[in-house]
């Protein structure tokens, strides 16, 4: 297939046959109440969560913003400058430290910031998460409220899931889609329906009956297994039941969706460019599809794994690979600095895609919290202090935007996790465990 440039305009032009809607017209204003801030059926605009992850850390001295506090009291650093257009939407948390140990470079940091727990060690450099990663903890909380429990996408990650960290529990990883066409098919393929689409596939009920039988098979098999394998089969059955629920939903009238919801065009296969700019295109497509998935209430939780831990990615315009340079570049690491700025520029693209979704009086970012982080701070030493975390959006008014909150006492980075879960309405008293357990959130960033 010939490579085509897919601009955002072109992407949004695609829509279901029969729905005559022009670009820019609110598709489903009629579903909002008179105030435009709630669905016509009385439910509030849904709260969402996003996680944006990049591998290999940053350089704290060029990262940490100057000044502390709100608005004009703080200023972006060199590495954060690419996010300037989003300053009013972002808050930066600096000075926090992951306290759960550094057994395995990159992996321990990811485990610490995303679960507040020590990495489970499996021998050699192998490890798994002891508990759900924060995106999955939140997905548990929102379970059942949208078609997809969560969605995972990524760019510089490969197909094995290695170096990405969406985990439902031990040995239970969600491998992100790294090809736009696969993500599109998963989210906007056969299972995507808009209000007004009332045709029901007669095979759905039959497929559900078959799944009932599959569950029976699993229950029969379980009886003969040991406890560990019963658990694995239980997890499988949970996924089967979730699929059954999805099929049942497809037999009902499509639910409410936000006013900006449209079905995007199929991005097709992305041709590899010698200058590697196709990765930027993959990222932009993923960003737009994530935004549209949220706008269409297909999920409440997304995670985007821009680059995996230990990735040796050669970003467009750079000759050297990221990970090796974090270790081998001497002194102030000017190349790593530029690579980090490139990554932040890509984060800005993702945030822009979210900001472009109009909802109620504002945008998707007003009903969402996007958490951006990585697997260490200074990549050269896999440092766990000065851990970089950013928030975008205000989570329905619960989180302050345009702040720099700094801990000068190496406070537990799990406080960030607790702040996030509380913003999502979860009532957990703590985040993390043992050395990583936090029972206080960060009041300064809570509205």
């Amino acid at each position, binding site marked *: 297939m010939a490579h085509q440039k897919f601009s955002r305009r072109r992407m949004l032009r695609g829509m279901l046959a029969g729905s005559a809607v022009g670009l820019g017209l609110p598709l489903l204003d009629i579903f909002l109440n008179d105030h435009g801030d709630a669905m016509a059926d009385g439910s509030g605009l849904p709260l969402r969560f996003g996680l944006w992850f990049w591998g290999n850390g940053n350089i704290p001295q060029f990262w940490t913003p100057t000044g502390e506090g709100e608005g004009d009291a703080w200023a972006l650093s060199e590495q954060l400058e690419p996010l300037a257009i989003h300053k009013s939407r972002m808050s930066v948390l600096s000075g926090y430290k992951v306290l759960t140990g550094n057994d395995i470079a990159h992996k321990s940091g990811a485990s610490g910031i995303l679960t507040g727990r020590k990495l489970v060690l499996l021998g050699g450099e192998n490890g798994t998460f002891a508990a759900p990663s924060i995106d999955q903890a939140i997905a548990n909380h929102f379970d059942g409220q949208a078609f997809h429990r969560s969605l995972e996408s990524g760019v510089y990650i490969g197909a094995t899931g290695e170096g990405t960290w969406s985990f439902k529990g031990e040995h239970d990883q969600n491998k992100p889609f790294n090809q736009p066409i696969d993500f599109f098919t998963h989210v906007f393929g056969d299972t995507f329906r808009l209000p007004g689409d009332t045709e029901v596939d007669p095979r759905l009920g039959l497929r559900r009956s078959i799944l009932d039988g599959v569950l029976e098979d699993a229950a029969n098999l379980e009886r003969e297994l040991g406890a560990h394998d019963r658990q694995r089969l239980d997890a499988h059955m949970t996924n089967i039941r979730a*699929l059954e629920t999805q099929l049942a939903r497809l037999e009902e009238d499509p639910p409410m969706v936000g006013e900006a919801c449209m079905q995007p065009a199929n991005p097709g296969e992305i041709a590899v460019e010698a200058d590697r700019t196709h990765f930027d295109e993959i990222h932009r497509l993923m960003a737009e599809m994530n935004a549209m998935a949220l706008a269409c209430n297909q999920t409440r939780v997304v995670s985007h794994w821009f680059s995996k831990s230990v990735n040796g990615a050669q970003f467009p315009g750079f000759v050297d690979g990221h990970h090796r340079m974090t270790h081998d570049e001497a002194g102030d690491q000017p190349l790593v600095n530029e690579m980090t700025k490139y990554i932040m520029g890509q984060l800005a693209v993702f945030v822009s895609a979210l900001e472009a979704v109009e909802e109620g009086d504002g945008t998707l970012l007003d009903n969402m919290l996007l958490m951006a982080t990585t697997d260490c701070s200074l990549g050269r030493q*896999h440092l766990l202090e000065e851990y970089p975390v950013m928030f975008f959006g205000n989570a329905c008014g619960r989180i302050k935007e345009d702040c720099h909150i700094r801990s000068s006492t190496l406070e537990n980075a799990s406080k960030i996790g607790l702040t996030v879960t509380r913003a999502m309405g979860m009532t957990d008293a703590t985040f993390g465990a043992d050395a990583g357990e936090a029972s206080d959130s960060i009041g300064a960033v809570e509205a």
Partner: protein
Amino acid sequence: MVLRRSAHAWAPIIALALVPLSACYGSIDDPDVTRDVLVAPVPDFAPGSGALLRLTNAQYENSIHAVLGEEIVVTPNSASDASPEGLTAIEAGIVNVSSRDVTYYESTAYQVAGQAMAEGVRDGLVTCTPADASTSDTACATTFAREMGLRIWRRPLTDAEVERLVAVADEGAETLGDFYQGLEFILGGLLQSPHFLFRADIGDAVHAENADWRAFDGYEMAARLSFFLWNETPDDALLQAAAEGRLTSDEGLSAELDRMLDDPRARRGISALFNDMLGLELLDELDKLPEIFPLFTPDLGADARTETLAVLDELVFERGGDYRDIVTTRRAYVNRRLAAIYRLTAPSRDGFGFTEFPEDSLRSGVLGHISVLAGNSHPDRSSATGRGAFIRKRLLCGSIPAPPADMNVALPEPSGTAVTLRDRVQEHLQNPVCAGCHILMDPIGLSLENYDGLGQFRLLDNGAPVNASGKLNGEEFENPAELGVLLRDDPDLSRCLVRTMYRYATGTEEETGETIVLRELEQSFAEAEYRVLPLVRALVMHRGFRSTTTPHDEAE
């Protein structure tokens, strides 16, 4: 308690209890690795407790093709199950099925069912004719469910299981007005069931020797045989052998084993073993900086894998050769792209062909293959530690702990006094914190520095001559060809194949009671002059492969 360094992964690791797991230990004065194995008496045989193994992506696809026909198009699972650490065969018993996988299994089941029940194709699969093809036919659907069920679930279905599937098929046929669309749901149910997707080591037969143990029954043996030897579901002949009780007797098992090893599918099965053992699936993601390696192309990783597997296939099946030649053979299997990197004449214009590295080449077995050299290097340069770690872990079954995370491991830039990679990584062997582990990797990897990050030969590294000498097991070598000879003689090389093959075939790490199985297989291997197929034979016939026991957590 005397601390002994050991490169054996399975030596009783008493010493490690005294040392933090993340640290390595070792004297830097004597860089030889003394390989004293702390010899403890080998425990009596006891079977392992088995695992619940999910079909790998390859096994899943192969099995669908085996049952429904080669022309069926199976969309590959876009989530790869290649494992960067350890064997995919073992991960299959550990990793949970994700919701993405469940969605894939559902949509794929109906995609292949639709193809299988299309006009023309279905005649080969449906052995009866419905009275009226525009509605249900319970009798014919029942026949179909039994026949397909036996093949897909690898055992006869119970009446209840058949009835349940047929009920949906009947409803489907009536709702959709098409008998054959109804049958699609039988296939849908069979292909999504855990009875297809998983193999459970239950041991449904009584064990002749010990009441606490269990024997695998005929159908379980059929599955174990076919997934090990063919990487796919049992064929009809094997299922028939199971039904007739032949797979639980020595004579019957041996006869089927012979048939299966003679079958072309065995070549694919043994290739799958080496693919997993050497981590070659990861080559799909091989990435090199084109500015530095203009000969790199996106297909190179896959080509390199094809080469290494073909050389090993030839060694095992065509030459019936000594496995240890894996580190000394000069055989190569190249297309024009690989030939250009190797600076060989391509044996054919298009596609692949066998050839040999010249007599004076230093490429020694897989140590000289692009799969190993490029596959274990950085995108922009070679990695002595990476290649050394690969050889130590994958070929010698050594275990190497993770490096300390907070250590500054910056490689000094080439300078006046430190020009080559060997110079620049000296710290690894001179710093006591590093040396204990790096002694297991760097001397091996540094011998391969005549090959750059892509595997191309070079005499110079940054303008200075490469020094490829070193020491292994107390013996000196001057170049990778001499290293290959030393590796060939290292008992760990052959023992590692035994252990890896056993783990691969059983899908688990061996338990204490299975140590003796490995010892006995090592013995058989040596007696067979290290030929692979006799080892496969010995493994399959061994009670270790044919027995199991209750899972430990159930024993309470």
